[in-house]
């Protein structure tokens, strides 16, 4: 046996999940209680905004960060989730929670289908294909009267849902739970066989195939999971704002932030998108209330340029975590 101690290395196979979940639930509980103590409705509004991006950025990272397939169609998946929630509400009377489940299924299948059609493409060609998907979906929604077409659709939400003090508090809590689950899934994927396979694909797809990694199957799993979680990020959107139109649902801000946040935090790690989303989304909220919401993408653009130039491995790269 070599000098490297095998006993130490065996430990690498044992991933401890319990401390992570306890920590995540603890942090979520602390955030919720802190906002409840403050008791300001804007806190829930801003918190939802940040958490929505935690979910979206973590979802993007599964395909873009772990497997290296850059998806420009995040807004398309998010909007598909939002409109699924509207459709199932209108057709079956489903409320927010069942709507989220339906959105996960629909956008998961959409991700699988998109992956099947596009994953033979690499690099910029794949990215362009995902961008086209968002354009196709937006055209479809704009011309679909059932969901309001270009006029948009209203969701009349209740003022309160007992035992919560307000609907804002309720929907914030829903998004908080979704964020914890999404980050947990992203971390589990990262340390699992699936994650290792995706990382091998990112580093060298041909070599991965040669050593037995079923590259297409893993990429399809990643696109389905990524699509489902992006849909989950979008499903509460019509309930959050009470109104949804195609311009808001397919906003460029979603597509840009979904890429910028993992890159700034550190793509390819579960923590990177969380750090990037909390920093960038908080900054955008601050800019919105102090200067103008029109500045948001301008700010993101500059920060992205700065990071790509001076810290291409993101914030976590500074600490040697990746």
């Amino acid at each position: 046996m070599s000098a490297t101690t095998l006993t130490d290395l065996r430990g690498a196979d044992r991933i401890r999940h319990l401390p992570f979940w306890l920590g995540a639930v603890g942090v979520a509980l602390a955030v919720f209680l802190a906002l409840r103590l403050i008791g300001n409705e804007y806190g829930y509004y801003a918190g939802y905004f940040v958490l929505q991006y935690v979910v979206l950025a973590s979802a993007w990272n599964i395909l873009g960060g772990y497997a290296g397939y850059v998806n420009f169609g995040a807004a398309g998946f998010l909007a598909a989730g939002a409109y699924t929630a509207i459709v199932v509400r209108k057709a079956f009377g489903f409320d927010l929670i069942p709507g989220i489940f339906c959105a996960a299924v629909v956008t998961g299948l959409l991700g699988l289908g998109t992956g099947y059609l596009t994953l033979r493409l690499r690099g910029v060609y794949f990215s362009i294909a995902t961008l086209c998907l968002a354009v196709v979906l937006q055209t479809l929604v704009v011309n679909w009267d059932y969901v309001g077409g270009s006029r948009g659709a209203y969701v009349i939400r209740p003022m309160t849902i007992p035992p919560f003090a307000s609907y804002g508090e309720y929907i914030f809590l829903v998004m908080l739970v979704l964020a914890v689950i999404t980050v947990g899934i992203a971390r589990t994927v990262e340390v699992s066989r699936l994650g290792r396979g995706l990382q091998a694909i990112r580093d060298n797809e041909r070599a991965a195939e040669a050593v037995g990694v079923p590259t297409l199957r893993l990429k399809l799993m990643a696109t389905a999971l990524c699509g489902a979680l992006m849909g989950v990020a979008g499903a509460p959107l019509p309930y959050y704002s009470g109104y949804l139109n195609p311009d808001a649902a397919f906003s460029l801000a979603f597509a840009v932030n979904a890429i910028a946040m993992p890159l700034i935090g550190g793509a390819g790690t579960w923590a990177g998108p969380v750090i990037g989303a909390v920093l960038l989304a908080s900054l955008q909220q601050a800019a919105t209330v102090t200067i103008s919401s029109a500045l948001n993408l301008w700010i993101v653009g500059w920060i992205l340029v700065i990071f790509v130039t001076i810290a291409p491995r993101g914030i976590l790269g500074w600490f040697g975590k990746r």
Partner: protein
Amino acid sequence: MSILLKAERVGKRFGGFVALQEVDLELRTGERLGLIGPNGSGKSTFVNCISGDFAQHDGQVTLAGQPLNGLKPNERARRGLARTFQLPQPFNSLSVLENVRIPLLFSGAAAEATPRAMECLDQVELGPKALKLPRELTQVEQRRLELARAIALRPQLLIADEAMAGLSNAEVDEIVALLLRLNGQGVTIIMIEHIMRAVTAFAERLIVFVAGRKIADGVPREVLALREVEDAYLGKQ
């Protein structure tokens, strides 16, 4: 000894260019085959057809009696066909150990991936560097890492595609010794190589490709003495 690999009338075209023409090959279990030929003669195209990197246009390939046609490279790898590349292609963001764990995770040995990966690294004398990144390895160590990753598949057939390109004489000897050791453990090996010293030291059978065709097949000493082989390498007198 039984036939491990059988290729019948394998052909490959790139547009109008015929890269391989009706190549036949029967390889016995445990054999050490050297595959030589000038640049562009079709050696790599042939092994790429066998490994599944290229889909051949004509012919049949079987491994241990099982047809490989239509199978993806990863499916062929899991059936015991391993290969290395002309340029080392490590997974750069993963440690040396993780590089070798990857094939084990996907070949039904996930539960014992780490100890098995360490065994493979020890076989190529990379055990002490298990936690380093591939970029921290020397050229010959990266070649050994490629071989460790291939060994992890417990291959029946190993294709070493110019595994010694760019190495010093001492390093070439090191890799040849390693390949001989693997062959001694029962692995059938095809070595594609331009370094004749390595080929003659390793191969017990030699095949020569020229312009997509097999022009010679036999014992190395006899094959290298053939006029056609000399003409192919040095030009016609």
